[in-house]
């Protein structure tokens, strides 16, 4: 797993690469969660290169969602591969995340 951050307009874009499973979900958590304390209004997790996510990874996504919501921010997810999307759908989690098709779509809205 690899995680990188960039700021586009007033949105922090987070790129995820590889797999997130029980072996690295803790690393993912320590890398992602502190960023969300930042006073940014919007956060976008780009999942284009995320190949697999286990339930441990989903837990971190939930944690992120809760933290952003508590700070009255907004968390977007985008560009999911079909398999990742399926995991979100099966677990019913797609109902509580704001999942979008493309990064541009989110950035336009965030402006």
């Amino acid at each position, binding site marked *: 797993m690899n995680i990188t951050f960039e700021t586009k307009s007033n949105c922090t874009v987070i790129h995820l690469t590889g797999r997130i499973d029980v072996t690295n979900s803790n690393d993912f958590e320590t890398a992602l969660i502190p960023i969300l304390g930042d006073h940014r209004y919007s956060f976008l997790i780009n999942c284009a290169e995320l190949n697999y996510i286990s339930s441990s990874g989903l*837990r971190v996504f939930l944690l992120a969602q809760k933290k952003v919501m508590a700070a009255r921010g907004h968390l977007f997810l985008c560009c999911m591969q079909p398999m990742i999307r399926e995991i979100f759908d099966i677990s019913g989690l797609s109902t509580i995340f704001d999942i979008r098709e493309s990064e541009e779509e989110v950035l336009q809205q965030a402006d």
Partner: protein
Amino acid sequence: MKLQFNINKSLSLRIAVYVLSFCMLLFLLVLLVFFFFSRKQIEEMTLKNAQIITNKSAMDVERTILPIIHVAQNYKWMLENKQQSSEELYEMTRRVVENNPDVIGSAIAFEPNFFDKEGLYFSPYSHRENDSIKSMQLGNASYNYFYMDWYQIPVATGKSSWCEPYHDTGGGNVLMTTYSTPFYKTVNNEKKIAGVITFDLSLNKFTDSVSSLKILETGYATVLSANGTFVTHPKEELIMNQTIFSYAAELNNSELREIGRKIQKENSGYVSSTLNGVERMLYFKKLSSSNWSIAVIFPKSEMYLPLHRISIILIVLVCIGLLLLTVIVSKIISRQIIPLRHFASSAREIAKGNFSNQLPVIKREDELKDLHDSFEYMQRKLTLYIEDLKQTAIAKEKIESELRIAREIQMGMIPKIFPPFPNLVEIDLYATLQPAKEVGGDLYDFFMLDDNHICFAIGDVSGKGVPASLFMAVTRTLLRSVAHDQMTPRNIVNSLNKSLSTNNDSNMFVTFFLGIIELDSGIMTYTNAGHNPPVLIHPNGEVIVFDMTKDIPVGIFDTFDYSEKTLQLLENDKLFLYTDGVTEAENKKEEFYSEKRLITTLCNHYRLTPKELIGIVSEDVAQHVNKNEQSDDITMFSIVYYGNKR
């Protein structure tokens, strides 16, 4: 210490051999240089020596000859400027023999009819016979001296000459030569040839001195006359019988002929040549008073003989020296490295686990001391490390045993007796749970709410291991405590969610499916909280996957209101529930077992009982995984509804 001859096993010997090899090379180099320069030196010295010997011999000869030549000059002057009587002429010849021991005979021979009173032949002659001197008149009809070489050549050339050597026929085996010089008289103001003065010289003294010359071992000297006749030579049969040219022809040796020509042509010089199969050096010099030459010849190999002898002695001495050096170096080194052997045995002891083993004592402050200190450091570290390891192992064992107990407790929480309700004819069910680690986060459960309602559930806690197992235990316990008769799946799950979400700081969640079947009617109500959709298998082989749920897993938002659905089960309808450990079971190529393959397997075995069906799917999953490490808990649950039997 015993010298070990296995080079690979003895460091000391190996080093000694290296040193020896280097010394040997060095020595060889020095020897070669020495040999090369010595050869050159010896060559020069030997040639110089030969030159000196030759020159000395030549001088000896000249010393014998020169007085004779002076006497000849004096007589010539007397004959040309004074008138002598025949008696005086006899007296002159007698005196010269008397006064010069090397002169054997002397004659003053006149031209025909030149001396009026004596007629055609007149040649007073004195010679040594035994110890007395006899005089006589040499010429007569039988000895017509006018045609002899000793007379004819000086008359014709007008110059003094030495005739070729010859054996004196009268005086025994005496090798002789004759010196002749012409003299003139002035008659009617005209200078006319008057005759020839001759001296017969014995060559014996000269040849003896040359023959006794010895150069190196087998080197010798030889004298050649003007036309190349051997005057002296170690081979006596050559003397006076052969010239150098006839000898060359006899041996068929063109090189020798060339040497002969060179000797005749030049005053002195060196020749290097192969004669009689031996490489020889030759130095020659022409005598200044005659055209004779003296030469010394010696084999080249003898020239270097002393050098060879010295070289052999040198080699033997150095070999002995090097051998001694090897032994001494190898002894010194092996004494120096004795501690290394001790270190080796210490290391072996340490390897056996004996860390407190005494190390050899090193008093020096060198590399061995370094080694000693490193060894000591290693010993200390190893002791600490092993102690640490022991503690870790104990701790690990403790955790493992605790985990074993935890697993037993966890497994004790889920029902494992099948069939669970032997008296219940409407249904049959079976379930398995295989944690990926000692304890897992999957769960299943089933229990009767009342006589007519059976409640069953399957769930998957996020994550794995101890945290997941604790959350699973909490979920299972809460489920049993909140579920009671008159409740619907929606009530149960809502209640469960409320309890789990409160104070859930770790944000763990559990995907959960809960169903209740009314046994007499076959109506199933269910709630799916984010769990994999179960599969419905009709007795005709039709397989239907449930719709995906819109409800989120349990434990996330305490206010979430879950939905509920209803399904009419027909006779022999079968349900198959599973966790994602089944569909996401990976082989070594990281390929999932997949939902598609699961459905295919279920389709192929739709007639089987729940227990058989779960067995078949387990086998198929195991075949797919092919001994790859199990990454997630695998849980399966199947229930069949046989219809209303009341």
